[in-house]
């Protein structure tokens, strides 16, 4: 059984929700790829902001306004440091990763026209598909797709054979870590290819930044989107990182307060990044919470977190491999693989047990997983299935929770088999 490189019991004590019981069962929270739980330190930072320092940022000139602005900008600097950005001004706060990707699509799209190509992959989350579909519709650009191999990795050979990335490619937007397959994609390699033809590279790092030590320079992308709530922070805040010289050339996304330089009746000029992209009152308390989350993750150490995640993913894959009728989607070994593991389950006589039914029975035993298409319907179509069940681990996950899942899945199978055999008599 894996052991964390930190005191797991002490760390779990920072997350009171993990002590909850669901009916007669202890909670086994295996849905962190959906949203992570929050440590007391993050909740307390948000509470302290509201109870002691609350004011609007930038516009309020009084003491509270100065304190709120300082905390907000300190959070920006903390996030910049966390991902190795050159300067805090490269961090744009949005409401979530979806908004960050929409911002990227909208602002980059001003340069696109018919004949241009946008490349995504079939394993993307809807938030890295729909904004590009909308952009293609608006500009007449063509959307092209990376396929996947049988193992659930990007099919680079096929991409090369199809000349997927070529002189017409304007934008390549890819996920770093798949939220369904768990695959870690070679984004730096693809970014180099894309840059060689003059394309701009966007990376959806929503599942990557929470789990893996992140240096934006190593990823090689021009723009990177991720979200606060999957990395111990609150909901309502996302991040778009961009190379400053690129951000400085991009037009605004949303118009409004604080994104301007001068507004006249004839027209407006815009603030420099990042404020150009932050119209209206931003998510202030959420930024403070995200700053605290980043501090917490740094305290534990991203190397140790990635190692724990790797160990646990291996343990999870091993326990799932013992279950008959269970098929893992994506890589079955913990190599270049994140901590989200999706699978299908069938009874001995071949009846597919639908993920909602799996999820519901697991839930009745305190095991929280996600069942559905995980906002990746094209991927499920590609795999020839309608949906899947997904378990995902994070820094606070204990091996006992994975054991509860494995036992629960055995129970689900027996439950449906018992009924199905009776049904046949």
């Amino acid at each position: 059984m894996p052991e964390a490189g930190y005191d797991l019991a002490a760390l779990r004590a920072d997350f009171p929700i993990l002590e909850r019981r669901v009916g007669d069962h202890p909670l086994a929270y295996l849905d962190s790829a959906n949203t992570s739980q929050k440590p007391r330190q993050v909740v307390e930072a948000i509470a302290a902001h509201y109870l002691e320092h609350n004011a609007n940022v930038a516009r309020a000139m009084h003491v509270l306004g100065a304190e709120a602005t300082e905390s907000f900008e300190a959070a920006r600097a903390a996030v910049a440091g966390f991902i190795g950005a050159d300067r805090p001004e490269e961090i744009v706060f949005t409401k979530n990763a979806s908004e960050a990707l929409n911002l990227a699509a909208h602002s980059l799209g001003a340069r696109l026209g018919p004949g241009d190509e946008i490349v995504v992959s079939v394993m993307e989350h809807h938030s890295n598909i729909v904004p590009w579909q909308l952009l293609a519709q608006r500009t007449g650009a063509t959307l092209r797709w990376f396929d996947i191999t049988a193992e659930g990795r990007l099919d680079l050979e096929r991409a090369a054979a199809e000349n997927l990335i070529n002189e017409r490619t304007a934008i390549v937007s890819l996920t770093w870590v798949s939220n369904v397959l768990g695959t870690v994609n070679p984004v730096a390699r693809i970014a180099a290819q894309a840059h060689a033809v003059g394309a701009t590279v966007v990376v959806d790092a929503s599942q990557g930044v929470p789990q893996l030590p992140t240096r934006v320079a190593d990823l090689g992308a021009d723009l990177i989107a991720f979200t606060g709530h999957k990395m111990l922070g609150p909901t309502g805040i996302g991040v778009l990182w961009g190379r400053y010289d690129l951000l400085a050339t991009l037009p605004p996304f949303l118009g409004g307060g604080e994104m301007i330089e001068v507004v006249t009746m004839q027209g407006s000029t815009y603030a420099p990044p990042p404020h150009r992209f932050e119209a209206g009152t931003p998510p202030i308390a959420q930024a403070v919470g995200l700053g605290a989350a980043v501090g917490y993750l740094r305290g534990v150490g991203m190397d140790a977190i990635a190692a724990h995640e790797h160990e646990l993913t291996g343990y999870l894959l091993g326990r799932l491999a013992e279950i008959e009728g269970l098929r893992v989607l994506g890589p079955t070994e913990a190599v270049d693989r994140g901590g989200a593991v999706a699978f299908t389950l069938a009874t001995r006589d071949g009846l597919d047990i639908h993920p909602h039914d799996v999820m519901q029975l697991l839930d009745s035993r305190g095991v929280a997983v996600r069942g559905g298409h995980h906002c990746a319907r094209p991927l499920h179509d590609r795999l020839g299935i309608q949906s899947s069940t997904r378990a995902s681990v994070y820094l606070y996950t204990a091996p006992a929770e994975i054991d509860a899942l494995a036992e629960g899945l055995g129970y689900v199978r027996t439950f449906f088999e018992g009924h199905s055999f009776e049904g046949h008599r």
Partner: protein
Amino acid sequence: MSVEAMYQEIILEHYREKHHSGLREPFGAQVHHVNPSCGDEVTLRVLLEGDQVTDVSYDGVGCSISQASTSVMTDLVIGRSVDEALALHEEFTALMHSRGETEPDEDTLEDAVAFAGVAKFPARVKCALLGWSAFKDAVAQSAAGIRLEESNDE
């Protein structure tokens, strides 16, 4: 109520062997309903003759609750008058929204009473209603089509 009790034997039997499954000709209207949060889908056709529901055929993917509920629904509505079928839709929908406070009427709902327990799991109510909502929609479209044809004949 335990989740095991929600999965009544009748539900699992219908999930395993769906009644009236598969898309058939002829039909008066076809609809496609989706539950976007989970991806459950059903394509459903109805054939109305006069005020009678002559056939309901469907092709769907989804959980045991949504599939079994659609199957049970076809048993109930085929051969009924449109008014009776829509009254059943209304009764079943009310049962699903009752949060388990209403005692279902077995005389009218027959096998559909097995879904009474689903009402205690709000996240699954939409699963149980998917096929029924598609049926109501298809009946409305079919009836509108019939009226259109009648007015064209005039």
